[in-house]
């Protein structure tokens, strides 16, 4: 996976441009999520970000993860979110008093984190390249590991889901 190929002519131009465009869309979407005054706009921008992530996965050759991302995040989580907006009768349309008073503290911290992480990631991974001749066997590998080495976590997750459902029902019931 971490094979390093340094040949300059092997840089795949199309994929890099594709990455750039999708990344730009994701960043704009993310900014819209936190700055938008309309909750539905924010939700749909989040869909944009998550789909962009799925697209990136495809570029990386991990199509199983990409499809899971769409199914779970966009399909389930965002739909659930929109249901929540509908059922709690959140105000559709512009909200006015959304500003976080401590934003003056939060934004610099966030920028600091961004700087640190950016530096760290660039420093750590800048020499990495994706193998040019990778055939994607991602789904196969994932299923092998889920039914092999990662069997116990996989089965444990079923209990997480059961507990979440039961607890959610108990807490949400009107009684």
């Amino acid at each position: 996976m971490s094979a390093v190929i340094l040949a300059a002519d092997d840089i795949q131009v199309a994929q890099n441009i594709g990455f750039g465009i999708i990344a730009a869309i994701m960043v704009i979407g993310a900014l819209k999520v936190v700055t938008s005054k309309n909750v539905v706009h924010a939700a749909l921008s989040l869909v944009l970000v998550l789909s962009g992530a799925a697209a990136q996965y495809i570029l990386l050759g991990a199509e199983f993860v990409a499809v899971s991302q769409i199914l779970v995040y966009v399909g389930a989580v965002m739909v659930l979110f929109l249901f929540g907006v509908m059922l709690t009768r959140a105000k559709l349309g512009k909200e006015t008093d959304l500003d976080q008073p401590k934003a003056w503290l939060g934004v610099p911290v966030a920028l600091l984190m961004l700087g640190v992480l950016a530096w760290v990631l660039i420093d750590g991974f800048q020499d990495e390249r994706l193998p040019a001749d990778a055939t994607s066997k991602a789904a196969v590998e994932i299923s092998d590991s889920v039914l092999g080495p990662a069997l116990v976590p996989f089965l444990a997750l079923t209990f997480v889901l059961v507990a979440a459902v039961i607890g959610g029902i108990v807490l949400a019931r009107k009684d």
Partner: protein
Amino acid sequence: MIASLLAAAGDWVAPTLDYHALAPEIILAAGIFAVLSIDLFLEPEQRWITSALSGFVMLGALVTVGTLAVIGDDTRSMFGGRYVSDEYALILKALFLVAGYIVVLMSSDEIERGRYHQGEYYVLLLTSVLGMVMMASSRDLLSIFVALELLSIPAYMLAAWNKRNSRGNEAGVKYYLLGVFASAITLYGMSLLYGVTGTTLLTDLGSAITANGRFSGVEVIAVAFIVVGFAFKISAVPFHQWAPDVYEGAPTPITAFLSVASKAAGFVALVTLTFVAFPNAEDVYQPFMWVLAALSMTIGNLYALRQTNIVRMLAYSSVSQGGFILMPLTVAGVDGVGESALKAVVVYLVVYAATNLGAFAVVIAVARKTRSGEISSYGGLFGYAPALGVLMTIFLASLAGIPPLGGWFAKFGAFKAVLDADTGWGYSIAIIAAINTVISAAYYITVMREIWMKDEPTGDTTPIRTPPSLGAALVITCGATIVLGVLPDIVGRFGDITDLTGALGR
């Protein structure tokens, strides 16, 4: 087409499962489904059966832990070392199961009286204990994370169980939001670590970190993020903000569960990671843990001094005790100290579990009559409920570290571990810990003073009747606290460094 897919399928081999090693987990899983199904068919008056059944399930799992300890090999390793059942894991599984059993004893009357959806409560409790039991055996990043989620998610919901009460809801929401945030940070750290080293197996991580002799920034950030996430779980300062409100809003048996079992699970993860995955990363985690330990001890104590509510006081006290448990890890990387550090942490967790559960059991018992959480409502307790007064004194004295109760040996072990290191960091944290021991005695004494020396505030001196299950919980915890203090060798045998497979690169 299918043929080509099958050809590309590679060679999957069915993993070998050691069912004996998985027996505790299997029993707990079966128990969860049993309780859930039986609950469907019970009449409301029969709901106590769920509590009894959960108790039996935990005891059954405990029996299998016992058989694992006695029969067969000491170390059973599955999935290439990702799920290991060694003596360290067995001791901690036993701790979680016994703590879970005592919480069941403490809850059975409380939950029944409040008409609190008993069946679901016990299902969630069992699920959380299952997660903890898994955590003790997990030796790769993925298993640790899943175990973390498995134990936390039921806990988030259990914390909100007082749903008719706004404090209860606040507790649940706060715990949930901060908890998932912390889990997310941990996961980010884990994924970065995987990205750098290419493996999630802890023993491989141990050799892969600083493989080329120096740290890369990614490794530092990854280790830091992982520690931060678990620091939240153990309510280390400054990640402790959730603790007082959650402890106060949750039902008291759940508070006891969170303060003991959930915290212990966080420590188990930290200890496993520190000794197996990060032995070479001591320059990163040691100073970080030093700061966490020093802050937790001091700030926990300072806030506890000002509390008037017993549950909040115990919450801050457990923040401070968490600092003490963290103390040996600040020197775990120093040569030759790893042994005593591991032993100190395991011993402290066991003693602290017994003592804290006992203290909360007394809180539950007294609240049955006084219906109040204020420390002043304990006034004159010795006059009308001498047994409870003496028990609370024993538990508080043990937390303060007064011999011959269990707490003194736990503190002694922690001090010995840091002094073993013979470094400046070690001596300085030992001094901070000593000062904090005396400060903590002050607020424990305040409660003792209320119990022994003040008068009953409302003049109502009817004796308190404790239900048998609560009484049993009190007897077990008190017995453990006293025995572990007088004969510390019983627990001193635990936590040998050889028990933890792969610790420090062995």
